[in-house]
């Protein structure tokens, strides 16, 4: 039972264009969502998060959008840079603070082409 799904295993985008990574979830109890970025041989690094009381959160080149009715969130990266090439994981939690038992998607490998 995959509660968090990233249906695109990979995505290729040209440098300078927008990258859009998608994530769907099924559990209505989730109210906090996060994106992590992972380079090879390293642990995931926190990128950006959003609470269910918001529909958008922006941090520099990264914006996360949340559509609660569709149980869908997306990460927009603009403009895309070569250093953005990594695996991106979407994660969800039923509580925003304290012990977060995160449920992760399978990941999307983003490749930025020069």
């Amino acid at each position, binding site marked *: 039972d995959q509660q*968090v799904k*990233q249906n695109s295993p990979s995505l290729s985008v040209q440098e300078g264009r927008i990258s859009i990574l998608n994530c769907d979830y099924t559990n209505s109890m989730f109210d906090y969502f996060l994106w992590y970025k992972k380079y090879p041989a*390293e642990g*995931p690094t*926190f990128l950006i998060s959003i609470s269910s009381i918001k529909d958008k959160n922006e941090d520099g080149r990264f914006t996360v959008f949340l559509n609660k009715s569709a149980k869908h969130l997306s990460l927009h990266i603009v403009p895309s840079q070569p250093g953005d090439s990594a695996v991106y*994981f979407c994660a969800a939690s039923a509580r925003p603070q*304290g012990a977060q*038992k*995160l*449920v992760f998607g399978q990941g999307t490998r983003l490749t930025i082409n020069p």
Partner: protein
Amino acid sequence: NAGVTQTPKFRILKIGQSMTLQCAQDMNHNYMYWYRQDPGMGLKLIYYSVGAGITDKGEVPNGYNVSRSTTEDFPLRLELAAPSQTSVYFCASNGQGTGYGYTFGSGTRLTVV
């Protein structure tokens, strides 16, 4: 640098052997976690801890044990290793009120043959 330190980085075990994966954090975080990542899959929670002396099971705890005797350390014990435990193991921590997600270690790649 402050963060989460995992050792070893790589290990090959024979079926039936045991080992302990070490995890230490120096950020005074209350909460610590162990996840495993199988190829093409997301991370799955094995065990977590909300403070010294308190641990609880995650989604996939079978075949593992944990202890938390100090705030800093959260070792993961594999007893009677099986090929199904071949995976990359990540330890993570977060503090009360951060809301910024976990700080992860760099992982331990374990192969059971």
